[in-house]
């Protein structure tokens, strides 16, 4: 058993797809978000978690503040160059499988801060699964992003690493 390789033990057979379905169903109903909230989008996230646009309806109720317990990283707000190593470290410390939502224009592409101090999109340092546009995005847009992640879960094999070949600006 070669445990150091990144492939899982069982091959692609009928049995694994059934196993996949069960695992996917368990994962999508209880995504635990880690809110990396920096700026205005964090206030909109707080409004999404409040009682009107309840994010708990989608299973993402338990907001964990340690990356070791979380599986969904929501980057809400501008990431400056000073903050970038912090984001990378937090992403690296999350256990597999992990998803990333880039909430807002600043996290997706730097927003309208095209200057010496803003990271032009967090996909320079972490692999992003869903981008949410808006400045700040409405809570319904964020809920749509969570639903997209849930849909994404179903179509991927459950037991394989998700972004094995991602290179950030720190690795290159």
């Amino acid at each position: 058993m070669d445990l150091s390789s990144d492939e899982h033990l069982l091959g692609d057979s009928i049995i694994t797809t059934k196993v996949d379905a069960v695992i996917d169903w368990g994962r999508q109903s209880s995504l635990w978000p880690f809110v990396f909230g920096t700026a205005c989008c964090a206030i909109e996230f707080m409004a999404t978690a409040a009682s009107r646009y309840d994010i708990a309806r989608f299973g993402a109720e338990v907001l964990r503040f340690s990356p070791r317990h979380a599986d969904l990283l929501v980057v809400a707000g501008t990431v400056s160059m000073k903050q970038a190593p912090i984001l990378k470290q937090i992403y690296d410390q999350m256990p597999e499988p992990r998803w990333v939502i880039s909430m807002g224009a600043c996290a997706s592409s730097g927003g309208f801060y095209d200057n010496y101090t803003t990271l032009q999109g967090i996909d320079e340092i972490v692999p992003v699964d869903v981008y949410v546009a808006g400045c700040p995005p409405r809570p319904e847009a964020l809920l749509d992003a969570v639903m997209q992640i849930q849909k994404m879960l179903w179509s991927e094999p459950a037991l394989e690493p998700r972004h094995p070949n991602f290179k950030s600006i720190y690795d290159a």
Partner: protein
Amino acid sequence: MPHNLLLASILVAILVIMLPAIFHLTRYIGAKSDNERKNEVYESGIRDTIGDPFNSFNVKYFLVGIVFLLFDVEILYILPWAVELKTLGVFGLIEMFVFIGLITGGLIYIFRLGVMKWI
């Protein structure tokens, strides 16, 4: 075997088999990607932690822990007594209240000493 003991031993047997099975299942079947950063200490995102984690702690934390332990053991004694209260009768009731009263005396002593204050 008495009815209760049989149920308890079945529960223990299931747990002893199931929990290690789940842990090992995720370890062998799940996807892994190890990088050297993953096993570092979580320090709100700051790398390169400095210093030894094995410095001495303040004694107040220990005191609070010990006091909790004592009262927890007291509760351990109260629980089976509460289950069998009817068969023990009035004598059992008074006996347990004497026990709780003695421990409460200890609590008042600790309070007066100032162990419960944090600063």
